[in-house]
């Protein structure tokens, strides 16, 4: 509990310091906005269309694989730290857990979803 209180205080300080930097810069710096300056930077070209470009679906597939792997590897942490207190059988169980994870990767690989095209 004590250590989480410390982390909370640390978060507050870590947010205040960059915030203060931006605030000081805003006070010290000039403010003369004009339409050209505020326009979207595009190497001197006029912006065409909506800036909300529809992105490649491939990014989504990688995010999907990442999500599943992230969840599973995070669950391996309790296994990892208690490995000395567990019998060999449980260590193998953890390995089985990992192998199920690998099966998913093999499937996506075989399915050709890891290709970037």
């Amino acid at each position, binding site marked *: *509990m004590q*250590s*989480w*209180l410390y*982390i*909370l205080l640390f978060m507050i300080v870590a947010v205040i310091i960059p915030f203060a930097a931006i605030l000081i810069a805003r006070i010290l710096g000039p403010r003369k906005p004009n339409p050209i300056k505020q326009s979207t930077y595009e190497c001197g070209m006029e912006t065409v269309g909506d800036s*909300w470009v*529809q*992105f490649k*679906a491939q*990014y*989504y*597939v990688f*995010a*999907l*694989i*990442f*999500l*599943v792997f*992230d*969840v*599973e590897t*995070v*669950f391996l*942490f*309790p*296994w*990892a*730290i*208690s*490995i000395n*207190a*567990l019998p060999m*059988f*449980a260590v193998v*169980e*953890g390995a*089985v*857990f990992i192998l*199920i*994870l690998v*099966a*998913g990767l093999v*499937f*996506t690989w075989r*399915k050709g*979803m890891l290709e970037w095209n």
Partner: protein
Amino acid sequence: MTALQIIFLLAAAVILISAVMVTATRNMVHAALWLIATLFGVAVIFAVLEAGFLAVVQVVVYIGAIAIMFIFAVMLTRREMLDKGPQMNKRAWLAGILCVVIFASLIYMLSSWVGFNQIPLLVGNADTLTLLGQSLLLPSAYLLPFEVASVLLLAALVGAVYVASNRKQEEK
């Protein structure tokens, strides 16, 4: 008022306000960002409950993966995100009344329970992390749910990849 109670109340306020904003905002990216605020508040609640592992897992899994997935999905379906037209169903008021009734009856039922105002026991020196690892992996405890969770995630991956890759078959 102890410091712990103040932290709890602040976190609860963050959770509830941003939860309301999630359901009320028109802009879907903003809704996802409000969801992140809610999730962060829940992580603070876990820390207050001395479940430090779950607090960090909440941030890693929910904010680091699930929220990112939501933002990606919103980007993929952008045309609807221009937020035109009503965002609520016609019978939203009915849903609102129903939810208030459900909330009130939940609280009514719980408050008649003996343990409602229970005070927590001290954690002491119990190493909850190692205990968690043992309960997850010993067959006498929760080994089966743990492995089933892995299979569930595998099934989700296979299914989601299958659904997401359907487009190729259409083009053929």
